[in-house]
């Protein structure tokens, strides 16, 4: 029973971070209709940034907001320079552009940082929190709490600010958004920035738990794709729910099957969902839900 509770809590905590990670991917898709194959590479970027800030003496969790805004800026610039012109082009063009970004970022990381594993190890890095017979790493708890706060802030931003309203309006009907005078080019850039910011922030929260290396993004791209397919492409609540489900599955399969079963588990879920419920758990309402549920 204790083992079960331990796995359950670990899975939910991990899932909270996956939720934030996938929120970025689903938001970008919901608004701009771009499937960002470089999403995981921006997690990698966030992890490296956290690593270097930590080396400079920053606590990784204090670095996290800095990483968010840095990645936000990177996202805005990337959208402006590389993706803006592709918005009216066939989807395949966008796929290739984001794949290209992913390859370049991996190669760049390899060049700059070598393929060594880097570890972020704050003094409390190995601390455990005990609740009864359950022991959980402090870093995982902090990561989950901050990820949930980040997720809540993104939702508030979308719901309560003028820019958030413009983003939701554009997701629901870009033409109508244009008609009322919303500059949808700006909306696309800001949305991409927020999406990449979420990826980077997730990276900052994962850095004290997992090592960073140039190809680490592949795993995170895979996770966020599974989550987003599970939760429904473009659905914001779906990202959190899907994140929790994948976090649980990963934790339980690692314990009961084998730690190496992780990727096989993702793909199995991926295929089962696509077969049984291609629209995801919450149904494929895509971007449209962006107005309804929050």
């Amino acid at each position: 029973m204790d083992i079960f509770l331990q796995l359950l809590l670990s899975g939910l905590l991990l899932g909270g971070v996956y939720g934030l990670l996938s929120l970025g991917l689903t938001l970008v898709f919901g608004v701009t209709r771009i499937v960002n194959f470089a999403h995981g590479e921006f997690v990698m970027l966030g992890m490296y940034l956290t690593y270097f800030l930590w080396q400079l003496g920053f606590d990784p969790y204090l670095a996290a907001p800095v990483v968010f805004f840095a990645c936000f800026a990177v996202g805005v610039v990337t959208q402006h320079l590389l993706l803006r012109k592709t918005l009216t082009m066939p989807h395949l063009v966008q796929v290739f552009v984001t794949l290209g970004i992913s390859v370049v970022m991996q190669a760049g990381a390899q060049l700059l940082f070598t393929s060594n594993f880097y570890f972020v190890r704050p003094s409390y890095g190995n601390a455990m929190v005990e609740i009864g017979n359950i022991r959980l790493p402090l870093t995982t708890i902090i990561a989950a709490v901050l990820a949930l706060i980040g997720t809540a802030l993104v939702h508030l931003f979308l719901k309560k600010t003028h820019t958030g309203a413009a983003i939701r309006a554009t997701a629901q009907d870009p033409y109508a958004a244009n008609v009322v005078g919303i500059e949808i080019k700006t909306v696309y850039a800001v949305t991409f920035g927020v999406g990449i910011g979420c990826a980077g922030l997730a990276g900052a929260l994962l850095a004290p738990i997992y090592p960073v290396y140039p190809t680490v993004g592949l795993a995170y791209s895979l996770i966020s794709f599974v989550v987003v397919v599970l939760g429904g492409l473009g659905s914001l609540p779906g990202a959190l729910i899907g994140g929790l489900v994948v976090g649980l599955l990963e934790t339980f399969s690692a314990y009961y099957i084998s730690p190496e079963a992780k990727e096989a588990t993702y793909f199995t879920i991926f295929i089962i969902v696509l077969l049984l419920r291609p629209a995801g758990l919450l149904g494929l309402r895509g971007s449209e839900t962006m107005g309804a549920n929050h």
Partner: protein
Amino acid sequence: MDQVLLQINDLHVAYGELRVLQGVSLQVKAGELVSLLGGNGSGKSTTQKTILGFVRPTSGQILFEGERLDTLSIPEIIRKGITMVPEGRRVFPFMAVRENLLLGAWVRRNERAELKHDLERVLELFPILRTRLNQLAGSMSGGEQQIVAMARALMMRPKLVLMDEPTMGLAPKLVDEVLELIQTVNRNGIAVLLVEQNARTALGFTDRAYVLERGRLVIEGPSKDLLTNERVRSAYLGELSQA
């Protein structure tokens, strides 16, 4: 009320190779209700989109209260006093009516106190929306959505509203209701440039009308004169020519 609000001179518009407008000149005076008629694909929507700044003309001029519009952005044009009720209503389906209306004043989003007044004024014009403010626009009927779209366009206190086929797809009873609301809007001193499929309806209640055919204006004049015009009768009113 004779002051010219919108003046279009020799407007040419093309989508790539396709020349859609080929020398359109028209005028809307302050407070006027003008209809723009024409068959499918004759360029009516393009004319309206060009006025609002969606599409850039290849040549020609658009003047609003004497100022050039054709180099301004959409928000700048909206700020000058032109808004649009687009074809197909295009409300934001997963937003409440209130949020739809407030987005109509997006360009003035920071003027909080005034927006409250504008919302109140618009609700006085469209009282049926008052009890629906929290309803999702997408859950409303076509007629109700049309009213939301018109109300949204009025939130900017426009001097001219471009309406593109506002009665399309509505049941006859609702058509009358929407037409009445257009007249209510117009009686409040707002000029309307109305694109309407049903020529008889449009000519029955507008002041003047223009007829577009393949990107050129072929007939223009007071609407009641067009009702008896031979060419209009045979081509747009479904009546066999007597001649």
